[in-house]
């Protein structure tokens, strides 16, 4: 085979890959016939399920934006609100740094905060398994009440159902929330611009690893705590400092930083480049990931946010985050560029380059 032939062959293959990649971007494949645990991982399979089942059935402009919360105007009032819902099935129910109740309050507050909203009211729905100890329920509910009080939100409506033993795992919680958007922020995962900086509010992987190690199977002793926290005061400080310079906010929960950034890259048809050495990871989380063969960038967080900020506002945004107790370890971890669209890549610690894909499959079932 001559060199010219080879080059032509490579060009053909490159074109072929690009065609498939383009097709994949616009058409998610749902080939599965049954729900598997991967569909709940928050990664690729979840996307395939949403795009294959829910999105076509429910399609409307609010849902189709695929942001953490829907935002809309209230007829005639000129006021915008954000609305979101989330369900919590974490196992174990109590873990270092938190419990299912605290998580259920923080998670919904954070989805509202990522829309630039001030969270106001939450609902709480409980599915309880026959035989579940009331003392545990009380502990969880007290923890929810405390988390709501500390965040300045009220749980204003609720629902309870009990199912037969074996039909649920102790307790499942659903929360929904509404918040008010005071300024007309233009936030969303379709608003990234080439040149924007990627900011991360602190270390990654703490929640997912804390949950994993809390499960009995692993006898690894560490001090890793879940990072669960309400982020609305941090987003308020950030928006006040950088204003319109903030283009997108996202809390990297299931699927981790890798999945959140891939969603943004796809949503805005841009590329995102990260510097591995700039990404804060606690030593113990890194150690646990090395032992278990996991990538901290695909591990869930419950108290961290990613902010995409215009380059001229990146420094003030970083300063505002670092002045907030939940953003002390904030860092600029990368930037947005035009090409190749829809891709996230990482400049590795050793000086190489790799593509950072969404989470495929599920290393850690039921983490939130």
């Amino acid at each position, binding site marked *: 085979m001559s*060199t010219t032939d080879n080059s032509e062959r490579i060009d053909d*293959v490159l074109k072929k890959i690009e065609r498939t990649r383009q097709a994949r971007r616009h058409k998610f494949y749902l080939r599965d016939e049954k729900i*598997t645990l991967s569909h709940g991982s928050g990664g690729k399979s979840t996307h395939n399920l949403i795009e294959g089942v829910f999105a076509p059935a429910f399609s409307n402009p609010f849902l189709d934006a695929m942001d953490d919360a829907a935002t809309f105007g209230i007829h005639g009032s000129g006021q915008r609100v954000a609305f979101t819902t989330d369900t919590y099935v974490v196992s174990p129910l109590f873990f270092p740094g938190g419990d299912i109740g605290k998580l259920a309050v923080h998670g919904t507050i954070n989805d509202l905060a990522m829309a630039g909203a001030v969270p106001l009211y939450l609902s709480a729905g409980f599915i309880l398994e026959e035989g579940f100890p009331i003392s545990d329920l009380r502990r969880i509910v007290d923890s929810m009440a405390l988390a709501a009080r500390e965040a300045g939100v009220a749980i204003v409506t609720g629902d309870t159902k009990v199912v037969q033993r074996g039909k649920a795992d102790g307790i499942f919680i659903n929360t929904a929330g509404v918040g008010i958007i005071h300024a007309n922020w233009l936030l969303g995962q379709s608003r990234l611009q080439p040149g924007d900086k990627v900011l991360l509010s602190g270390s990654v992987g703490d929640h997912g690893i804390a949950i994993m190690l809390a499960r009995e199977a692993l006898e690894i002793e560490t001090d890793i705590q879940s990072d669960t926290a309400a982020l609305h005061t941090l987003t308020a400080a950030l928006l006040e400092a950088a204003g319109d310079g903030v283009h997108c906010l996202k809390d990297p929960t299931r699927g981790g930083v890798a999945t959140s950034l891939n969603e943004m890259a796809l949503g805005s048809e841009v590329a995102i480049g990260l510097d591995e050495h700039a990404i804060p990871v606690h030593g113990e989380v890194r150690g646990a990931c090395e032992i278990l063969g996991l990538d901290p960038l695909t591990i869930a967080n419950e108290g961290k946010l990613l902010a995409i900020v215009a380059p001229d506002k990146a420094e003030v945004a970083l300063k505002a985050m670092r002045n907030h107790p939940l953003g002390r370890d904030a860092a600029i971890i990368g930037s947005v560029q035009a090409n*190749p669209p829809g891709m996230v890549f990482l400049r590795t610690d*050793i000086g190489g380059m790799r593509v950072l894909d969404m989470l495929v499959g599920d290393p850690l079932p039921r983490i939130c």
Partner: protein
Amino acid sequence: MNMKYVDEYRDPEMARRISNEIAKLSASRPLKLMEVCGGHTHTIYKHGIEDVLPQNIDLIHGPGCPVCVLPMGRIDDAIAIARMEDVIFTTFGDMMRVPGSKGSLLDAKADGADVRFVYSPLDALKLARQHPDRKVVFFAIGFETTAPSTAVTLMRAKAEGIKNFSVFCNHVNIIPAMKAILDSPDLRLDGFIGAGHVSMVIGMRPYNFVARDHRKPVVIAGFEPLDIIQAIYMIVKQIAEGRSEVENQYSRVVRPEGNVKALQAMAQTMELRPFFEWRGLGFITHSALKVRPEFADWDAELLYEVPGLRVADPKACQCGEVLKGVIKPWECKVFGTACTPETPIGTCMVSPEGACAAYFNYGRFSMASERSRLNILPTAGS
């Protein structure tokens, strides 16, 4: 836990310096080196090591991913056991998604089979103790790295008389696979990066035939980026000096004689199969282990009736050639058309770490370096 040592094996400045030395020693001569172990392949992709190396060094990803080399028929057998009444089927997490001819273990789980993932066969034995009314089967896969822990678990099950536990044994040996690759008439490899964890068990001596009979250097390497880059330096140095020896870069872990106790445990509980099928490579004699007759009561292959059918890899699939470094993934007839990560045909496209899946997903980058490689260095056959 103090993980600081990791950083010392990831110093970009040191990586560049060694890479420059490799470039000097190899004098731009194109060299194809195979990393036998899937763990090395993972490190190479995760850290983008190919970008750091000189362009003339070509890494071929060998058959050392135990998940990829397991033939479809064995996965079908595993699923058949998992679907049986009263069975709790336990496996390592990465085995859950690998497709058999009709779906994966994850699909079987969604269908109602009790499939659980464990981190060690001892966890599976613990499950057997906790559920005396159920039958716990452990899906044992892997090279000499994981076989000793299966051996110890079998011995413990026998000693404690735990009768509701058994092992579906699929352990394979790395040396026969290397032999098969070396005996292949279309071989185009210049040296081997030896598997670190396997060598920790088997030691250095089993590799001697590679250096002696085939005149190819072998350097056993660790799993950090600098381990691999240094091992490549040591191989290139051997080639430059006209030597072919077995060397040990991973001396902080691998001892020349290996781990005698682990080898004894394996010998007590398992014996060689006459032959075993490898996905992409076909049947290889004496390349896998089964449970010894003394442990028949804990051998799932004897306890359960499985289909035992051979499911042939499709004819068009050229995984065997890819694994031997004869062709690049994109030179395969079905690459990117019939065979994609969504609809994999061959083993190399199945696992995300497989050479073809990596080329497909990360094509833009690897192809770019491929192109510049061609511009700088016309291939030997052109």
